[in-house]
């Protein structure tokens, strides 16, 4: 793959992908670039922030409030969990229980339990429970079904 950086616009950054035909690899690259600068508006201690999606470990809904967890920070967002589920890339953000969406890129270990739940350990050491109702969906997604 040839990568060229050209300084020819006044502000911002534009990315174009040139290819002979659109393959799965091209689509993957496009997804990656689009996701690179995606952000969510959220607040912490009254201050507003644009949180990069890559930084998010998991999203939790508690008492009708939605929280974004990153390493060392907890942000609150106005959006409801189901709204976020619609916006976010379903290949990266997986609904793992009634009140939690987890970032699959931030999982370091999966541990199935006798209770049929799965414990997912995140990059910061925190553990998120993938409840048995959503386990089948995860197995299908990562290719463990059948």
């Amino acid at each position, binding site marked *: 793959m040839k990568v060229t950086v050209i300084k020819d616009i006044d502000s911002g950054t534009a990315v174009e992908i040139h290819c002979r035909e659109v393959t799965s690899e091209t689509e*993957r*690259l496009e997804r990656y670039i689009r996701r690179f600068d995606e952000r969510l508006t959220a607040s912490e201690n009254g201050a507003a922030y644009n949180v990069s999606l890559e930084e998010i470990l998991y999203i939790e809904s508690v008492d009708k409030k939605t929280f974004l967890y990153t390493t060392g920070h907890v942000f609150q967002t106005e959006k409801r969990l189901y709204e976020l589920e619609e916006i976010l890339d379903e290949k990266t953000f997986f609904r793992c229980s009634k009140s939690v969406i987890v970032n699959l890129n931030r999982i370091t270990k999966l541990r199935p339990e006798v*209770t049929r739940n799965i414990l997912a350990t995140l990059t910061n050491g925190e553990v998120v429970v993938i409840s048995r109702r959503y386990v089948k969906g995860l197995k299908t997604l990562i290719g463990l079904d059948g």
Partner: protein
Amino acid sequence: MEDIKKLLVYFRNAMAFSYSWLVLCTVIVSLIGGNREVTVLYLLKLLALCAWGSLCFVFSFCTAVMRKKGFIFSLTVFFLLFVPVEVLMFYLMGIFAGAGTPALWITLGVIIVAFYISAICVDVFIMRKRSQKYTEKLMEYNARKG
């Protein structure tokens, strides 16, 4: 608040399930043993044992904190909380004919230890292997989607 309600529902269900089964067992054992009376005091002690057991069960297996610790940890906490009280109540209820014989107490101990060891064996020999497989598949999936 919702979580407390859910825990209370679990407690009620556990209590109803365990108490009805134990009352049935008591009646059957009484009939087989030829002792055709069950005292109110005995039923009250049984109710107290079921209430404590249900409380331990809900705390060990249903609370958010304990669910994240894994099955074996929850089981250990459950046994540590419940078994001493169970032994005391069995003694007070005269289930093993007063103080009971060493053989009866050893049988009870063997049942508890055998159950605990089999749970650990399942965890070590089956779940750990599955954990490796699940984690590998997730990593492959993350690498594939980029």
